[in-house]
């Protein structure tokens, strides 16, 4: 065991105004207290640590006596090295260094400013729990613990980031999560070599598939969602400093599951889910299909619609493909602007957008009404699955390009490539399209529609996974 030296700590933590040093004189030497003012509860330290030390007039080198009889703090531990002492100080603990003893100890005295548990902005629900994670990982752990009161629920801490020393916690239920999955995640997370971790995305990038727009790692702000995933046998990764928690593995069909599905009427929940699936595929395919039909396959357009298309495109100088890409680009611009702007300006932006997209563009003859309708419909569909917005936008353009060069055959080729791409993805070693395509263990009851909760409330993994 290395004796902790106050000089070393002072050198390491110099030029930091918030690091406080307190010296307590006692009969046999000096006790140094080191802590960071902003991370600790000063009142707690004064009342339950410094006060008893002063009152007891320490006259013994027996630290066990001090820990057991003098300090009433709830969490006290030994420190084995200088670096460990610094780590504790930076984590919001008080470190006590005794000039008369070889050992040092730390007392937990965290007391920094935390955001209270609020409603998650990105995942609104009509019915169901409304609490969301906060930036403090200890709060997030407690939120999960409150949902699953099970001794098998494990939280394994791992410190990541050579410079940020961020606490990352792997969370799973022993016996429910497959062992090989836990080991896979543990190994991957432990081997992350980054200088700092500010958000879950730093870990996601290391774990997920490369070269794809699809997220093969889940991310949620809701403790109930994490709890349900843990009970399914999946693993959660909590990172200190972000209200988002990673869930892994994450499958394609998970994008279509919303918490509401399980808290509301199952028939309506199933209908909503089917609408989301239809919405996703419509958003990806509609523009390409329109382009293929309106520029190659006029024979399959109903006559009345063909006349309308012709009328609305009369005198539009741009080819349909350019018109379609231009309108899609306008929409992306509006969306991007709408997200970054404050809500009050956002409304004005929507009006300008609606006027530009809906009226002025058609008025000046840059686009036809039919194209505006297709792009608008495609955009509305895309809002049904916000989690898939990224891949949806990219693949929509790819399929438009395929359709523009080959018509419907191009559209089909684009669609097959899209499906093949998804089928080739993996999440933590599991196929991304699971359970689709895994015929032997096809668990359809919670894919396109939601069955009775008692029938779907079990692990999604095969028994074979546990035996490996």
């Amino acid at each position, binding site marked *: 065991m290395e004796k902790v030296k106050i000089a070393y700590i002072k050198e390491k933590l110099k030029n930091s105004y918030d690091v406080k040093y307190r010296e307590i004189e006692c009969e046999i030497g000096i006790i140094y207290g080191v802590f960071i003012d902003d991370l600790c509860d000063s009142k707690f330290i004064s009342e339950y640590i410094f006060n008893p030390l002063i009152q007891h007039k320490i006259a013994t080198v027996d630290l066990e006596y001090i820990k057991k009889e003098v300090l009433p703090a709830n969490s006290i531990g030994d420190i084995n090295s200088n670096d460990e002492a610094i780590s504790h100080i930076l984590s919001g603990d008080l470190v006590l260094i005794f000039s008369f003893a070889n050992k040092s100890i730390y007392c937990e005295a965290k007391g920094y400013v935390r955001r209270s548990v609020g409603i998650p902005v990105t995942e609104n629900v009509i019915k169901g729990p409304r609490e969301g994670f906060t930036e403090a990982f200890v709060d997030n752990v407690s939120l999960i613990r409150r949902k699953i009161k099970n001794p098998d629920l494990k939280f394994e801490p791992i410190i990541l980031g050579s410079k940020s020393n961020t606490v990352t916690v792997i969370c799973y239920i022993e016996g429910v999560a497959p062992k090989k999955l836990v080991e896979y995640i543990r190994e991957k997370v432990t081997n992350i070599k980054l200088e700092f971790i500010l958000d879950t995305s730093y870990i996601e990038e290391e774990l997920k598939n490369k070269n794809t727009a699809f997220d093969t790692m889940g991310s949620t702000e809701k403790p109930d969602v994490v709890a349900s995933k843990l009970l399914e046998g999946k693993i959660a990764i909590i990172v200190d400093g972000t209200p988002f928690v990673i869930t892994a593995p994450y499958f394609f069909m998970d994008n279509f599951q919303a918490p509401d599905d399980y808290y509301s009427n199952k028939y309506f929940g199933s209908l909503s889910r089917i609408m989301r699936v239809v919405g996703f595929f419509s958003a990806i395919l509609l523009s390409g299909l329109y382009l293929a039909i309106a520029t190659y*396959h006029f024979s399959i357009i109903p006559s009345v619609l063909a006349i309308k298309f012709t009328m609305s495109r*009369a005198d539009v100088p741009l080819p349909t493909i350019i018109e379609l890409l231009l309108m899609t680009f306008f929409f992306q611009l509006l969306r991007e602007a709408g997200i970054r702007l404050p809500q009050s300006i956002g409304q004005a932006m929507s009006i300008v957008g609606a006027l530009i997209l809906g009226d002025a563009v058609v008025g000046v003859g840059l686009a036809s*009404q039919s194209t505006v309708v297709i792009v608008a419909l495609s955009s509305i569909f895309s809002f049904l699955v916000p989690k898939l917005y990224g891949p949806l936008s990219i693949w929509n353009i790819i399929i438009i390009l395929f359709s523009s060069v080959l018509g419907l055959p191009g559209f089909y080729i684009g669609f097959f490539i899209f499906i093949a791409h998804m089928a080739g993805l993996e999440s933590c070693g599991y196929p991304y399209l699971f359970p689709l395509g895994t015929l032997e263990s096809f668990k359809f009851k919670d894919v396109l529609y939601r069955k009775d909760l008692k029938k779907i409330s079990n692990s999604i993994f095969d028994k074979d996974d546990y035996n490996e």
Partner: protein
Amino acid sequence: MNKYKKILVIICIIMSCFTMSACFSYRDINRLLFVTAIIIDIDSNGSPIINAEAYKGIRGATPGGTDERILFQGKGKTMFEAIRNMNATSSYKLNFTQNKAIIFTQKAAELGLDNFIDFLDRDQNLLIRPYIAIYLGDPEKLIKINILQEKYIGFFIMHLVENVGPSSRSLKLSLNDFYNQRNMGDKTNVVTIIDIPKDNLEQRLQINGGAVIKNDKMVSIIKTEEGQGFNFLMNNVSSGTLEITNPCDINKFITLEILKSKTKTEISYDDNIVHLKKKIKVKVDFGEAQKEIILTKENINKIQEKSEENIVKACNDLFQEYKDKGIDIFDITQQFYAKYPKVKIDNIIDKTELKVEVEVDIMNTGDVNNFH
């Protein structure tokens, strides 16, 4: 997949874009003129004269725009040449994928449809979906007709043919059915006849019987009145009306509305005679009575018997007429050879005896709820 394979796949995809495009190349919908009807006539030398109507979108006062009907005429020694000549007078390429009607004049039909239909069948731009019709009058009058109900005669004919249900006397035939019929059995077709009714309040078109086409030449006409018998024999009736004399007053009529009709055909060959049995089951509703009717069981039986008698007569009369002419418009040849492929008989209809069994079922006599 390694880098070189990826590049190879991308090159293949780009090459396929150019090689697979073929005749289906990118074309904006507003840079085409969509033909909705073609009228095929002939000149004194028998060369085709094509009249066509097409629509074009134009930018009007509203962003939605408006459409314009444009007429074309092309002449040539062949159909293809005539169409090419017609295209030469158009600012945009003529597209036939929205064509709804192919109309032959009587002159062209009598000369022989085989002079024209090879192009209609062979050209990729032309579909088998349109309806085929024969027009008995002046083609110029037809192409210039101004129908208030519908701007385009192609669409009007399509709707007209699809609306033949209300009349069990109308005949309809699509180009696809025409192609099939001209190669099957006796190679006889009955093609819809359209004309412009003389005594109508405004200009429009009507279906007026059917033209009998044998070996691609028009040989006879089935009048509208005879159409019902033909449709019953050919199992083409889905709705319509039956008018019979009122059992309570022989100078007045009652109308039965056809709800459903099914004709089953049985064919047998015995003693050098082909026995053709048609079992017709008709379900009707009581539609209307002139003056009055007392719906007793006896009167209902009389109505049933009379309506059955009328159908049998209509069928027998038409059959006899075409048996005398020796033209098999009833697909007897086709049905006979399907059952007896090894028996060879010349002109089967001559040796055919028709037996029609009709069963009319009055489903509902209806209630009159209010006299005022």
